[in-house]
């Protein structure tokens, strides 16, 4: 039997083969089951459980008590702290990261500078948690290299009003350390997707450097910049390990609230509170990531 030339359309292959070999089509679907089962077991079920437990008491009765618990002042404070730490580090990280990307505009992608920055950013963006905490304790902890140097050489004591490294404000410089590399990774493709023809066309049409940036480059980059900013926010908001390593006791931000709910030995019946907190986190994350995907689609439309 000779085959007619296969249609080039994307769904063509699936259509023709399954029409002629129905068994083949069904067998192919089986090929999807390992992944589907895996994702079901280790993503769908845990997520559902995580969120679901928020609606039950220890005895298994449906209740809204945990959800109401979210409105307790200390929980609201934790949400607020999480939000403003994430927002501040997202904005600062976005600006600094964008500046670095700008500084590398026009450099060869396989040149020494860009290769190094790409690799370093890749590593430092993952450099969270315990190791990052060590680094900052070693640097600006009370015996830290920089702190001591500033005291002795400049006479400045950064902890004059108390040691803030192990509290919420201490998270700011630490989070920034992985926010900036993440911004570089995320924003670089967009910034380097600025076509030289646009700058050249702007020049031939009488534009200056200022008008190029204000009327063309920045408007074109805006969706991508904001999208990356949202990603940075989500990244900081969902970060746990770093805070856990620095702040050994207390629940000043939402992930630490979850820690306290799951690990708490003193307050009973708090485990299901973790579920409510998880729900709260997911709601915020979904909103942020939805905004991110909207901005991404706008970007890809222009980058033809």
């Amino acid at each position, binding site marked *: 039997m000779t085959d007619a030339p296969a249609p080039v359309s994307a769904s063509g292959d699936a259509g023709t083969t399954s029409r002629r070999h129905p068994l083949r089509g069904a067998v192919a679907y089986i090929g999807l089951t390992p992944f589907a089962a895996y994702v079901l077991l280790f993503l769908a079920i845990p997520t559902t459980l995580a969120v679901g437990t928020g609606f039950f008491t220890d005895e298994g009765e449906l209740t809204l008590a945990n959800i109401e618990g979210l409105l307790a002042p200390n929980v609201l404070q934790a949400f607020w702290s999480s939000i403003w730490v994430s927002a501040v580090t997202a904005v600062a990280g976005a600006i600094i990261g964008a500046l670095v990307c700008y500084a590398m505009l026009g450099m060869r992608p396989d040149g020494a500078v860009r290769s190094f920055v790409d690799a370093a950013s890749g590593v430092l963006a993952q450099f969270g948690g315990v190791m990052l905490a060590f680094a900052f304790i070693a640097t600006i902890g009370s015996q*830290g290299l920089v702190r001591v140097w500033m005291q002795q050489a400049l006479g400045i004591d950064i902890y004059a009003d108390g040691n803030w490294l192990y509290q919420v404000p201490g998270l700011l410089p630490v989070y920034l350390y992985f926010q900036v590399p993440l911004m570089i990774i995320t924003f670089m493709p967009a910034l380097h997707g600025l076509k030289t023809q646009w700058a050249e066309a702007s020049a031939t049409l009488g534009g200056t450097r200022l008008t190029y940036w204000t009327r063309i480059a920045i408007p074109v980059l805006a969706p991508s910049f904001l999208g990356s900013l949202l990603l940075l926010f989500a990244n900081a908001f969902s970060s746990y390990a770093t805070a856990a390593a620095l702040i050994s006791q207390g629940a000043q931000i939402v992930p630490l609230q979850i820690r306290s709910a799951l690990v708490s030995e003193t307050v009973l019946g708090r485990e299901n509170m973790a579920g409510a907190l*998880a729900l709260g986190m997911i709601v915020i994350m979904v909103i942020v990531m939805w905004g991110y995907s909207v901005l991404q689609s706008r970007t890809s439309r222009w980058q033809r």
Partner: protein
Amino acid sequence: MTTRSAVRIGAEPGRLPRTLILVIVGLIMAVPIIGMIEFTFRAGLSGGYTLDHWTGLVDEDAARTYRGLFQAIGNSLVLAVVTVAIVVVILLPTMILVHLRFPRLQRLLEFVCIIPITVPAIVLVVGLAPVYSVVVKVFGSAPWTLAFAYGITVLPYAYRAIQANLEAVDMRTLFEAGRTLSASWPRILWHVLLPNLRRGVLAASFISVAVVLGEFTIASFLNRSNLQTALLQVSKSDPWVATIFALLALLFAFILLISIGRLGRERKSSS
């Protein structure tokens, strides 16, 4: 367009702003690393410097003193290997299958692989305990079982790395060419498709290893021992060794990531 022309019309920054930005940011980013390195040479509260912390790793007592830590490192390495296996054995075939046979499911697959960003480890872990009590019944409580959860955490990164490769190489045409040459599915997969996916699979693997080595949240809440939990534990009694290993882990990840970049470049020069 040459750089000079680009600078003249404002499309690129001049030499001075470039250097200033890169040097200033670079120096600031280097400080914590320098702080870590300096710390590992400190001789305790008495001041002064020593190599003891480093040499202590290779003396005869080391294996005993740091047994827990070395075991944790071993656990992390095993976890990395198993996670990569999950990526290669479960994710990769699914991505190829969807790309070639079920293109309409592409968006769904992408969505699923991006979910772990929206559902971070700290949320996932709240619901993982019950699942893992079942896992322990079936597979025992060996350290490697944690990889099941890690496979989910690395999904977004692995997916992106493999997808970039799938899109860059025209898999569909290669597949159809193989078919017209009368090759069967398995042979095409082995001889035609996989060799062309080497770059993406390696990139996905390296990133997965980096992520697994840095993972703390899930291991901590499931009371497992891995590199990060052990580091935190050790830091309470011997912060210097903890810092040394943190530096080494960082260096290892850096080498892995430079290798990915190198792979990409080799591909380009040979094509």
